[in-house]
């Protein structure tokens, strides 16, 4: 398979990017966790990918190609942020990196599953999750509004995240059965 000629190539790249950007975004967010840094890296990946699109082999999955570029960008980022990277040994980071890449490519299915799982949450859990992750309300603010403390709210969020992760996994496995 070959690339289309310009200007169709631009449209082709755009279409591929739109289809796959969430996977690479997920991979970067998992690797970095700091949302602002992750967005910076994502934008670098987008720029790199558009510049180097001629090197993309259409026989390969585009998401995997983007994740490859993201890996290089992350290495650059880690060089600047050594403290963060020093948390784990390189061989362990490689193991995680591989798992992140695998899971990232499932992001769309996981989002579908998560939406269903979130619908089943009790209202107060939904509110809690939305306030924290949708509105970025500080833990202390949430705690104050419900007469609790930040530690307890954090513990509750951890439990809800775990519940959701288990629910998503069950749905994913059920889908693949």
């Amino acid at each position, binding site marked *: 398979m070959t690339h289309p000629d310009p200007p169709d190539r631009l449209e082709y790249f755009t279409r591929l990017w739109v289809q796959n950007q969430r996977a690479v975004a997920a991979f970067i967010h998992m690797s970095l966790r700091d949302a602002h840094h992750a967005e910076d890296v994502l934008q670098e990946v987008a720029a790199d990918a558009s510049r180097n699109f001629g090197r993309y082999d259409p026989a390969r999955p585009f998401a995997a190609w983007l994740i490859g570029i993201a890996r290089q960008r992350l290495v650059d980022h880690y060089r600047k942020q050594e403290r963060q990277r020093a948390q784990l040994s390189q061989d*362990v980071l490689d193991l995680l990196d591989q798992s992140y890449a695998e899971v990232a490519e499932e*992001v769309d299915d996981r989002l579908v599953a998560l939406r269903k799982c979130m619908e089943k949450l009790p209202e107060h859990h939904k509110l809690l999750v939305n306030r924290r*992750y949708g509105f970025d309300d500080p833990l202390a603010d949430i705690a104050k509004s419900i007469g609790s403390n930040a530690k307890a709210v954090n513990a509750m969020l951890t439990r809800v995240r775990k519940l959701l992760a288990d629910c998503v996994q069950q749905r994913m496995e059920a889908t693949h059965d």
Partner: protein
Amino acid sequence: MTKPLSDKQIDQLIADYLAGSLSAADRPAFEAWLRSSPEHPRRVARLSMTGFCIREVCHDTKADYLLDALNQIDEASGPAQLVTLHNLNPSPWQRYRIHAVWGGTIAAALLLGMVLTAVLLPSSNAPNPQEIVENTPNKPAASTPPTPRGFTPIAIPVATLTATHQATWGGPASAAPAQGDTLTSNQRLTLTAGFAEITTNRGAIAILQAPATIELLNNGNALRLHAGKLVGKCDSDSSKGFTVHAPGIDVVDLGTVFGVAAGADVMTSVLVLDGSVTVHPESPAHIATEPVVLMKNHAVSIQPGTSVLQKLEVVQSHRGQRAGVELQNTIAREEFEALSDAVSSRQARWVSYQYGLTQDPALVVSSRRDPPQSSDARSGQGRWPSTSAYLLRGGSDHLVYESIEQTRSMTLSVWVRINALPEKQETLSALVVSDQWKVDRGAIAWQIVEKGNAIKFSLSPGNSDPSRLAAGDLVQDVADGLGLEQYQGEWIHLAVVYNEENSLVTHFLNGQPLQRQKMAFDSPLRPDRIQLGNWHGYASDPRGFNGSMDDFLMLRRAMTDEQMRELYRIGSANKAGASNTDSGN
């Protein structure tokens, strides 16, 4: 040999790692665990991915719609741009989302930018002004006249700041209004972030979305929108005629919901969500112009100073598909719908309030929290726009909850919308009745009686053969003169409190105490298993409640009058939401 980690320890290590707080001491154990099975790194990845996905899903919210739609309205009423953020003062979550939008579209933007710029250049063919309809109704109340020199206008209370959500205000912090504050004529307010709801003294509601600047006018039913976006709501006769003076146009509400967007460098747009409004274009020479009636889903824009109305097409926006020529001359309905629902910050407060109640050890049953043990009720429209309530159709419909074996004091609270009342004076309509009513001593019954003119709270002395129990044996208190018939089809709040300390029973309607009487009962209340909306559904003893029930609460303590007022205040949905027709489907 190292002791294997427990599941709890592993969960904690993963949580610490994902939070960036894994300690150096824990690092070897975590690394060893990760190396010990290929499944372990995947487990971390899945949890990490869940965090990412939760953020994605949470950002896909009404507020996100607002942001998207705000871009659309900018495109529709100002120079076309792929992403317009120039007039936003985004909160942190919005910034995150904006980043995500950029992240998602950056390559496309880079590559398509030039093409789109060329395509989206404003057309030189100005669209023809299009008159929409119909007659020539009332001219709006005149705007505030110029102030004579040396005259200081008197500040008249004209409105109240009834709700805010993450609101910040321009100007000195000491001058920032707080929720509940009275607002006065000629007061100018600049909302720099969040949402605010203002209710005029005549009952009209204006919901503002930042950034916005308004000025309150002295007739008590009008305001001037200098810039920003608002939704106006008029659902009472007294508020009809509510007028928004915006650059280039006056909008007079005839009993409706409408949105207005305005700004210094953009056209002013008006969209009718429901009902009708009249719009009065202001001509540059102050020559009277013909008013135009806009009906539901009509939208117009006007360039201030031109008096030329331009019809806008009302579109349904689709996230991620909003860049394009077709958005010229369009306006997104969802944007204003979402802003209209911004009062649902009330809903958020109610959910938050309920959540607070769940921490109350005295809470026995919350229908929002606890599923009924059994139910043959259907799901109907709740009193908030996107919530459901239990719909009971008389007959044998009912809900069953396990409550509490016994208690000394009690509060029962429920929001109801009555579809029909019993036609006979003696027929009961059950709100809450103990399963063992009449059998157990202390069993309770809370019922509508006398065709909706009274509510009765009763305690049973108990009898193993309830048929031998005469009505006069029951201990009961009746609050009469309610006239519930007038509330049919509306959401109302009913509550009853039994306080064992002073043996008082208090009945409440819409947060207000109706009647308070002594009701001595020498043993604990024994609600035990309870039925809502019926009592066994005996054909020979019909007590079926016909209507909807929402947010039932039972507490094993007596709420105070103040607490009940607060419950009603926080839990009261706006009238538009409360009066939704309920088909029960």
